């Protein structure tokens, strides 16, 4: 039984380029979460989907960041015009609909913006 899959595991972009990160939740899980992890800020909540609908995007930066969940088998986080301060590990997690706090995390995508 595969866990949460995130691709790529590592991504290096130049300043100003676009980065798209992919997440495949555990089959049967209807809630998907995105987090950003840095040494300084720790684990920051970004956004949350349930049954593919956006529920809470209060943690998403207002500019350049967007997330989608076009079907139940994957979600994407897109960062436009990447900046060095966007460098972080981006984590995706999934859970059953009614157990949002019991999350299963993927291994993360390490984004480095040069």
């Amino acid at each position, binding site marked *: 039984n595969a866990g949460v899959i995130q691709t790529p595991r590592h991504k290096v972009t130049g300043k100003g380029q676009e980065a798209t990160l992919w997440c495949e939740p555990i089959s049967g899980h209807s809630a998907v979460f995105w987090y950003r992890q840095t040494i300084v800020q720790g*684990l920051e*909540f970004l956004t949350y989907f349930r049954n593919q609908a956006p529920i809470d995007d209060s943690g998403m930066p207002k500019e350049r960041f967007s997330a989608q969940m076009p079907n139940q088998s994957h979600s994407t986080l897109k960062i436009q015009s990447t900046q060095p301060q966007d460098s972080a590990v981006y984590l995706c997690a999934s859970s059953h609909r009614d157990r949002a706090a019991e999350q*299963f995390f993927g*291994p993360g995508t390490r984004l480095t913006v040069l």
Partner: protein
Amino acid sequence: QQQVRQSSQSLTVWEGETAILNCSYENSAFDYFPWYQQFPGEGPALLIAIRSVSDKKEDGRFTIFFNKREKNLSLHIKDSQPGDSATYFCAASYNAPRFGAGTKLSVKP
């Protein structure tokens, strides 16, 4: 603002000692408190959790003590082992969980 605070960024204990990791929260609406364990290069993994109706939850060497009135909780790791060395995140939830900044635990042999 930080809704969930972990009092220590790092903690070092000797093998066999009890490690105590502290956490506090602000929002009285939080009713579920999971702790996650993260090893380098991996995502966090759910370790143990407690509901606000309880004041203690035990699972093997891991115990959560919860004080609703004071809005704080602690994770006790009894008989700490070097393999317990990891970062521990306290979280609080009534919907999507909010995480603390994490405490990096080092257990010295």
